[in-house]
Structures are given as structure tokens and as C-alpha cells.
């Protein structure tokens, strides 16, 4: 989100610079030379002077502008996924990165015999583990749920996260 914000902010600042300079140039051109310099304002003025608020294009334009504003506002106000989850420490502001937590829990669960593949999603207060088994006896999803949960729990506890996120583990059999 930060990168997208930086991109939008660059575009907005450039648009403001362009608009500001344009207004200054046009005002000077109009007052000193009595004509427009870069944009034919008269055409725009004439259009606005003969167009009412009732016109479809004006209504649609206003709705589009409002919708764009709402989308941008929601995107800015939305809470993004945390980049780091804090560790209980008095000495530093220590934290594990979300990527790091996912990697270490994935590795712990993958080490359980019979687990073929593991996906880990780390959110602010919850870690979701989705493991897949080969499905052949004795490695069924049901039998591996407990060891997979134990491995994930043990690894999560060693991280000493504060507050400790909730853990949810789902083990499924690979579809053939």
C-alpha cells in the first residue's frame, strides 16, 4: 500500500504543480496580453454557460467523481496487514516479520511426517495454517491434525509473540 500511495501521491503532486503553474500562466496571459496562453478557456466557459446540471453527462461525471473519491477513501482507511508482529521484550522494539512467521511455521508443519504441503496466513491476531496430506494410510488428514497443530503451536510459542495470535490449523487430504 505504501508504494501505491507513493505513486498516487507523486501523480497528485505533479497534477497540483501543473494546475498551479497553468493558472498563473493563464491569468498573466489574460491580464497582460488579453488572450489565453495554453488552453482555450473561452470554449470551456461557453460549454459551462450553456450546460445545465440536469444534463446526463454532468450527472454521470459527478457520480463517477464521487465513486472515485469513495474508493480512494476506503483504500486509505482500510487497515493493511501488519508487516511485523511484536515480541515481548523490555530491551528493544522487537518483532518478527509476517513473512518470517509464515516461513518458520510452514517449515515446522512440513516437517511432520505425511504432510505434503502447507500454506500459512499471518494476520494481526490470527495465524491460519492449511496443510495437505497425501491421504494414504496411515497419513490421513484426521490422524495428522493433532501432530500438525502441535508442531505449529510449539513453533509459535518459541517466537514469544505478544500478544500471541490465535492459531487455527486445517488439515485436508490432497484431491486426486
Amino acid at each position: 500500500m505504501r508504494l501505491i500511495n507513493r505513486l498516487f501521491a507523486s501523480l497528485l503532486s505533479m497534477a497540483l504543480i501543473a494546475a498551479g503553474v497553468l493558472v498563473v500562466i493563464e491569468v498573466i496571459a489574460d491580464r497582460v496580453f488579453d488572450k489565453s496562453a495554453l488552453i482555450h478557456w473561452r470554449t470551456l466557459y461557453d460549454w459551462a454557460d450553456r450546460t445545465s446540471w440536469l444534463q446526463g453527462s454532468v450527472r454521470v461525471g459527478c457520480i463517477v467523481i464521487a465513486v472515485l473519491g469513495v474508493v480512494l477513501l476506503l483504500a486509505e482507511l482500510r487497515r493493511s496487514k501488519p508487516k511485523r508482529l511484536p515480541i515481548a521484550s523490555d530491551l528493544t522494539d522487537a518483532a518478527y516479520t509476517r513473512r518470517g512467521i509464515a516461513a518458520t511455521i510452514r517449515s515446522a508443519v512440513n516437517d511432520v511426517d505425511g504432510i505434503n504441503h502447507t500454506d500459512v496466513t499471518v494476520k494481526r491476531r490470527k495465524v491460519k495454517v492449511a496443510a495437505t496430506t497425501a491421504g494414504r494410510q496411515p497419513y490421513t488428514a484426521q490422524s495428522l491434525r493433532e501432530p500438525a497443530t502441535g508442531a505449529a503451536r510449539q513453533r509459535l510459542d518459541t517466537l514469544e509473540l505478544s500478544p500471541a495470535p490465535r492459531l487455527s490449523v486445517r488439515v485436508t487430504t490432497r484431491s486426486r
Partner: protein
Amino acid sequence: MHADRTNRTMLILFALFLITVGVIGALTGFGAFGAAAEHSRLFANPVGVYVGSNGAWLWFVIAAAAALVALLALRWLTVLLFSTDRAGDIRITGDRSAGRTTLIAGALTQAVCEEIETYPGVHSARARLIGDASSPDLVIETTLEQTADLAALRRRIETNAVAHTRQALDNPNLPVTLDLTVTDRQGRRAS
């Protein structure tokens, strides 16, 4: 830094501006302000009339305001593209009778990284000093190996490398941000 907080604030303000303009325009177009407003021309409103009747001096004020906005936007863009949050070199305070001591920020962060990278179980380390040079913050990003005792390693970083840095800066309260990540790749060091 890249003005992230300013970016967000400005984009929220821009979004509110778009919503205000769009909603007022749409409400006018759909007759929420009466039939007269709905059928009126776009410039036939109090603002348009005021600008029309005071154009002689008002356009100069608008031009001055536009120039100010352009300058502020230029400053914003410059900060966005070229600023850094890195701290400069640090002047060590204390007894100056024998001269002044300046600690090069890069030397300090390199020493921190080199110390951390000697710990078994550390894959790599990066550090930087941010903020004002007179009261900097140290940010350490360390990648730990999967097989390491993560909690013990973190404590070792805090009680050794971080403690040594605080000692070097003669600042026991130096704020330190420690970001840890984990990799399944093996370290570069032969142990």
C-alpha cells in the same frame, strides 16, 4: 520516510474533495436543491456570480494561491522522491577536553551487522540509523536460520550487539527496532 504520513493525509483530503464535489454535483443534477438549481447553468451559482463580478482583483488572488499550491506540491514531490530518513554522523557527547569525537553512522551499523552475523544461526543482518543525528534510532533487520533457537538468538542480539551499540554511543536508552525474519536457507558462515 518518503513522507508516508503526508501522502496518506493528502490522499484522504483529495478523496474527501472528490466526494464533496461529486455528491453536491449529483444532488444538484437530480434536483435535491430544487428545480431552479437543477435547471440552472453550471456557472449560474453564487460562487460563479461572485467570481464574475470580482474578476478584476480575484484572479490575481487565485493566481497567487495557485502559485503557493504549486510550490507546496513541488516541495512535497521533492521530499517524496529524494528524502531519506537516515541519520547523519553522530557527535559523541561528554568530555571534550581532548577534542570532539564523531562517529560515522555507516561504521556503527557495519560493526553491529558484523557482530550479529558472527552468531551461529544468523543468516544475515542489516542495520541503519534513522532520525535526527542527535537522538537517532537504530533499526536492525536480521534474518535467522530456520534451525536456530530463535528466542535464544534474539536475546543474544539484544543483550550483546544492541548493548554494545548503546555502550558505544554512551546512550543506554538508544531506541532500537529489531525486525526478525526466518529463512530456510543456510548461512554463509562455515561453522
